[in-house]
C-alpha cells in the first residue's frame, strides 16, 4: 500500500477514527492488526518474516533477562544477530553472492554452480530487521528494559507508518510511546496532517516529476550529451531526497496524528558544508544506527589513525551494501568513506589555501564553496547509486564532459525533452516546484514545516493547504513511481 494512494487515505482515516474511539487498552491491538494489514497489502506471505523476526527478538530478550552472566546474554544477542542477519542475507544478498561465487568458480574452472533463489525482495526487510536488532542490542547493553508484552513489542517492530521505509526507530524512543495513552489533540493532529501534506508534495509533485527525466537519462545514457547527463544526475540528487524525505515526512506526520513522535530522518542535507555534516543530515536514523552499532563497537575514533580510516571505510561500505546487493552500492559507500577520509587529510591544506587566498576573512564565501563542493561530491557518488551497473556509472561519469556547447547536434534541448515525452512547459513544471521547495526549506532553516505553517495567520495556513493540496492533485505523474527506498 503506497502512501500516495486512495487505499492508504481511506485506511489511515479508518485507523485514526478507530484509534481515538477505542479505549487505550485496545489500541495496541488495533494498530497491530492495521500494521499487518498495511504490510500484507504487498505480499501476504512475507508477513511471516516479520512474525519470525519479532518472535526471535522477543524470545532472545526474555531469555537474556534471565541470564545473570554476560556470556549467557551474549549468546542471546548472537542468536538474534544470526537470525535477523540470516534472514536479511537469504532474501537480499544470497543471489548476489551466489552469482559472484559461480562466476569466480567459472574463472577457476571449478565445476560448482550454486542455484539462485530468485525470490522477490520482501518490502522493508532492511528496515525492520535493523529496528528489531537495535532493541536486542539496547537490552543487551542495559539501556532498555525488556518489553514483556508480546503484542506491544510486535507493534514496535511492525508499526505501519515507518514499517517499510523507516525512519528506523529506536526502542528507547518508540516503545515507551506505544505504552502511553494519547488523547485526541487538535493541534497535534493538524501538525501531523500538515507534515503528511508536505511529504506528499515532495513525493508526488517534485520527486515523481524529476523521476521521469532521470529515468530517461539513466535508462539510456548513451543517447544523451554531457550536459543532460549532468542535469539528470543533479535531478536524481533532488529526486531521491524528495522521495525519501517525503516518505519520512508522511510517516512522521501519520504517527504524530496518533500522538507518537518518530525521530527526524532528514535535516536539509544539501545545506551541508562537509561530508561528515551531510551524514548528520541525511537518513539520520540509519547513519546513527551504523554509528552506534558498528562504528563505535569497532573502536570509533579512539584508535590508531590507520585503524580509524579502515573503520570509516567498513561502515560506509556496509552502509552501501545495506542499500542493495549490487557493486554500485558498494562503490557508492566506499566513495563516501573516501570523501570522509580525504576531508580529514586535506584539512590543513584547505586551511592554508584559505589563508593564502585571503578567503579566511570571508567566511560566507568559504561556506558557499564548501556547500557547492559537498553537493558536487555527493552528486558524483549518486551516479553509482542510480546506475544499473558500475560500468554504466563509469560511462556516465566519463561522458559528463562530452558535447558541452553542442546540444544542437542532438536537436536542441527542446528536442531532447520531446524524446522523453516531455515539453518545455512540463520541464518548467518540474523545476519550479523544486525551487519553491528548496526556498521554503531555506527560509525555514531547521524549523519543521508544521511549525513554519502553524504559526502563520489563518488565511496563510489555508492558502498553504489549498495550494499544496491542489498541486498534489494536479502536478503528479499518473504513472506509478514507487518510493525509491522501498527496494531496500
Amino acid at each position: 500500500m503506497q502512501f500516495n494512494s486512495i487505499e492508504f487515505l481511506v485506511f489511515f482515516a479508518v485507523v485514526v477514527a478507530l484509534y481515538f474511539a477505542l479505549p487505550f487498552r485496545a489500541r495496541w491491538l488495533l494498530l497491530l492488526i492495521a500494521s499487518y494489514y498495511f504490510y500484507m497489502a504487498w505480499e501476504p506471505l512475507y508477513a511471516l518474516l516479520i512474525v519470525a523476526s519479532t518472535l526471535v527478538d522477543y524470545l532472545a530478550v526474555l531469555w537474556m533477562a534471565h541470564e545473570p552472566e554476560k556470556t549467557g546474554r551474549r549468546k542471546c544477542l548472537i542468536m538474534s544477530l544470526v537470525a535477523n542477519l540470516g534472514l536479511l542475507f537469504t532474501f537480499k544478498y544470497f543471489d548476489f553472492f551466489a552469482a559472484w561465487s559461480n562466476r569466480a568458480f567459472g574463472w577457476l574452472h571449478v565445476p560448482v554452480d550454486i542455484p539462485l533463489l530468485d525470490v522477490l525482495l520482501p518490502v522493508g526487510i532492511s528496515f525492520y530487521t535493523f529496528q528489531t536488532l537495535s532493541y536486542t542490542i539496547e537490552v543487551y547493553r542495559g539501556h532498555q528494559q525488556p518489553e514483556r508484552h508480546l503484542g506491544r513489542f510486535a507493534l514496535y517492530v511492525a508499526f505501519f507508518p515507518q514499517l517499510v521505509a523507516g525512519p528506523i526507530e529506536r526502542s528507547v524512543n518508540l516503545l515507551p510511546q506505544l505504552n502511553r495513552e494519547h488523547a485526541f489533540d487538535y493541534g497535534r493532529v493538524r501538525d501531523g496532517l500538515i507534515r503528511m501534506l508536505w511529504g506528499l508534495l515532495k513525493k508526488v509533485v517534485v520527486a515523481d516529476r524529476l523521476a521521469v527525466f532521470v529515468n530517461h537519462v539513466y535508462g539510456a545514457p548513451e543517447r544523451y550529451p554531457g550536459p543532460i547527463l549532468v542535469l539528470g544526475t543533479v535531478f536524481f540528487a533532488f529526486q531521491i531526497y524528495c522521495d525519501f524525505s517525503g516518505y519520512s515526512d508522511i510517516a512522521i506526520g501519520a504517527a504524530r496524528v496518533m500522538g507518537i513522535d518518530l525521530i527526524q530522518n532528514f535535516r536539509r542535507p544539501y545545506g551541508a558544508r562537509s561530508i561528515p555534516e551531510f551524514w548528520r543530515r541525511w537518513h539520520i536514523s540509519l547513519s546513527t544506527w551504523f554509528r552506534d552499532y558498528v562504528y563505535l563497537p569497532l573502536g570509533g575514533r579512539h584508535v590508531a589513525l590507520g585503524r580509524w580510516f579502515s573503520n570509516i571505510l567498513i561502515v560506509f561500505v556496509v552502509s552501501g551494501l545495506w542499500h542493495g546487493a549490487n557493486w554500485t552500492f558498494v562503490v557508492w559507500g566506499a566513495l563516501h568513506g573516501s570523501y570522509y577520509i580525504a576531508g580529514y587529510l586535506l584539512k590543513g591544506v584547505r586551511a592554508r589555501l584559505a589563508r593564502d587566498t585571503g578567503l579566511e576573512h570571508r567566511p560566507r564565501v568559504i561556506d558557499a564553496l564548501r556547500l557547492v563542493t559537498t553537493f558536487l561530491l555527493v552528486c558524483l557518488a549518486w551516479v553509482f547509486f542510480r546506475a544499473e551497473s558500475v560500468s554504466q556509472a563509469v560511462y556516465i561519469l566519463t561522458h559528463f564532459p562530452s558535447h558541452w556547447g553542442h546540444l544542437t547536434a542532438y536537436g536542441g534541448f527542446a528536442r531532447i525533452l520531446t524524446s522523453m515525452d516531455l515539453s518545455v512547459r512540463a520541464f518548467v513544471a518540474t523545476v519550479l516546484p523544486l525551487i519553491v521547495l528548496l526556498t521554503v526549506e531555506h527560509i525555514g532553516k531547521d524549523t519543521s514545516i508544521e511549525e513554519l505553517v502553524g504559526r502563520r495567520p489563518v488565511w496563510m495556513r489555508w492558502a498553504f493547504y489549498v495550494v499544496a493540496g491542489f498541486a498534489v492533485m494536479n502536478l503528479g505523474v499518473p504513472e506509478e513511481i514507487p518510493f525509491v527506498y522501498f527496494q531496500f
Partner: protein
Amino acid sequence: MPTRLIIRLAVLAAILAALQVALGLVSGYKDTPTPVRLCDQYLAEGRPILYLGESTLYTVDPREADRAPINEMLQRLLPQYRVGCIAHDAYHLELYEAFCRYVVRKPNPPRVVIVPINLGTVSPYWDCRPAYQFERIKLFLRHDNRWFRTFYRPLAAFRAFNLTPISEREYNRTLVLDGDVPVGAIQEFTDAKYATCTDENTRDQLILRYMYRAPADHAKVIAAVHIARELRKAGVCAVIYFTPIDYQTGEQYLGERFTARIRENVQTFRDALRAEDVDLLDLSLVLDPSKFHWGSMYPNEHLNEQGRLFVAERLAEAVRARLEKTP
C-alpha cells in the same frame, strides 16, 4: 474536538473539488489522451470510415517514392468518403474493442470501422508487454463523461487505477511457447545476444513473434468477437482483416510449420467470429517477401510501398462493397 477537524477537512475537500471542476472547464480536460480527442474530432466531423491500426499502416521504407501510409492510400482510392485513422506502433484488438465500444455509444458513429488483426499481437511477446497495455486510453474510452475527465488526474495521482497491470518482472518471466511447448522465458529471447542477427537468432525471433498457438479464449480472440458484435448491434459495418505476414521468409527458417501455425491461428479467429456473421479479409498469406520492408533486422509485418498499396486496394474494395450494401 474531532468535529472541528472533520468540518475543516470537509471544507478543504469542497474547495479543492470546486477548483478541480473549474480547472477542467478552463483547460478543456487536457488529460484526455490524444487518440481519444482525435476520435472525438472524427466523430464531430462525421467521418464515415474509421480505420484503427498499428505500425503496419505507416511504417515505410524512406527510399520509397510514395511514403503514404495505408490510410492515406485508402483515402485516395475512396475520395468520396473521409477516412479517419487512429494508429500507434503497438495498438491491438483489445484497444480497438475499447474504441469500437466508445464510438457505438455516440449518436453519430462512423459507417465503417476497419480493424486489422495482426497475428503477431497474440504472442505473449506483444500481448503481455507492459508498455502495450494502454490502460489510460482504455480508461478514458470506458468512462466517457466529464466527471471522469475532471477528476482523472487527482485519482491517478492517488493510484486509483492500475495503469500497469503487468510488471516488467512478470513480463520477462512469461513463457514463450512454440505451439504448446515452452521454449524459454521472454527475457531469454530479448537479451543482448539478439543485437546480432544470425540464423539461429532469427529462428528464435520468429518463434517468439509467431509460433504461439492462440487458444479460442485468448483475450485478443475474445476482443475480435466483441468488436464484431458491438459494431453489428450498432449497425456499423466492420471490415476486419488479417495483416500480411512474410510467411515465405518464415518458412525459410522454420519450414512449413510456420505457415501451418499462421493458418491455425487464423482459423481460431474465423471459428470464433463465425457466429457474428462477419466477412473476414484474410491477407495473412498472400504477399511474397518483395512486398515487405522489415525496418529492423528481424522479419516482421511492415510493408513496403507495393505491400501497402495492395492492402489499401483490398480494403477499398471491401469498404465499397459494404457501403454500397447499406444506405
